[in-house]
């Protein structure tokens, strides 16, 4: 955990320290812009459709993610999206769904 914190900090500092020239390269820049998109999409997919090393979608979790999509389409703020997703899954589980 400390390593993660140190690594994240080092990357931030590196950006402020490194010469501006690097930024000029369009491929480097585009790559750094796209990395979060790829990783966050991968994380979303993995945590929705996988548990451990098996592919499996928990119905309540799927419904929660559906609620997230609906609220995002309605341009709801971040916290509303997250709460709607968790509340949907929690409600379905309370009703006895998987």
């Amino acid at each position, binding site marked *: *955990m400390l390593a*993660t914190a140190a690594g994240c900090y080092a*990357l931030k500092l590196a*950006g402020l320290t490194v010469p501006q020239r690097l930024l000029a390269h369009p491929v480097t820049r585009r790559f*750094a812009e796209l990395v979060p998109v790829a990783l966050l999409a*991968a994380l979303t997919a993995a*945590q929705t459709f996988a548990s451990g090393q098996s592919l499996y979608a928990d119905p309540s979790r799927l419904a929660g993610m559906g609620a997230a999509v609906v609220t*995002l389409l309605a341009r709801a703020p971040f916290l509303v999206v*997250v709460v709607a997703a968790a509340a949907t899954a929690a409600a379905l589980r309370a009703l006895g769904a998987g």
Partner: protein
Amino acid sequence: MADHAGQAADDATARPVRDGLALGLAVGTSGLAFGAAAVGSGLTVAQACALSLLAYTGASQFALIGAIAAGGGLLAGSASAILLGSRNSLYGLRLASLLRVRGLGRLLAAHGVTDESTAVALAQPGAASARAGFRATFASLYVTWNLATAAGAVGAGRLGSPQSLGLDVVAPAAFLALIWPRLRAGPAERGVGLLGAAIALAATPFCPPGVPVILAAAAALAGALAGRPAGGAAAGGHAPGGQAPGEQAPGEQAPGEQEGESP
């Protein structure tokens, strides 16, 4: 109140400060979700708070606890968290000329580089207002994010089991909300997102948890090499004064209406 010149100077920094404080408060409250999800994935309250104090990078923190919750190794979790934090380096590249910080100031400012502080700073018309916006966002977000993390971590433990609260959905819903504005930004982003998700799912049965997400970075590389915008967009990138703060601001701030992509 005062003469025109004084009022103009006030306005120049008052607006970014107000924007920064408001954004920090709004986004910082999502620390509640992080604190709750962290405890849900097995971290202690102290560990959750330490991550928010020291790592202070929302998406990376969610990635780390996500890998832990999936039973993955700390190494894989840290690797994907750090890879996810690499965008902060890019933000720093763009902020350096605006903030002009040295020595201790730079060490402190580095900790404050986030999606939000960068978005506010780059949205300002000048260096002074950019600095004011950056500082305000950093202060407001740091305080709010850490208090919210502690509250979420303590609260979740008292309320019930993580599953019954739906806390396992918090992290993926947060990830989706975080990339949503980028997915709307253009077909290249959507393509990279879909490819990244496909790579991760395809690799899941064959790799230890956490590793598939790292492999998905290949989608970004493919996107960078293939979907390179032809010439035009990069034309402004050379202004020596570090101007042109408007183009490609990395947050949700950008109005998202980029029609003029003629080849």
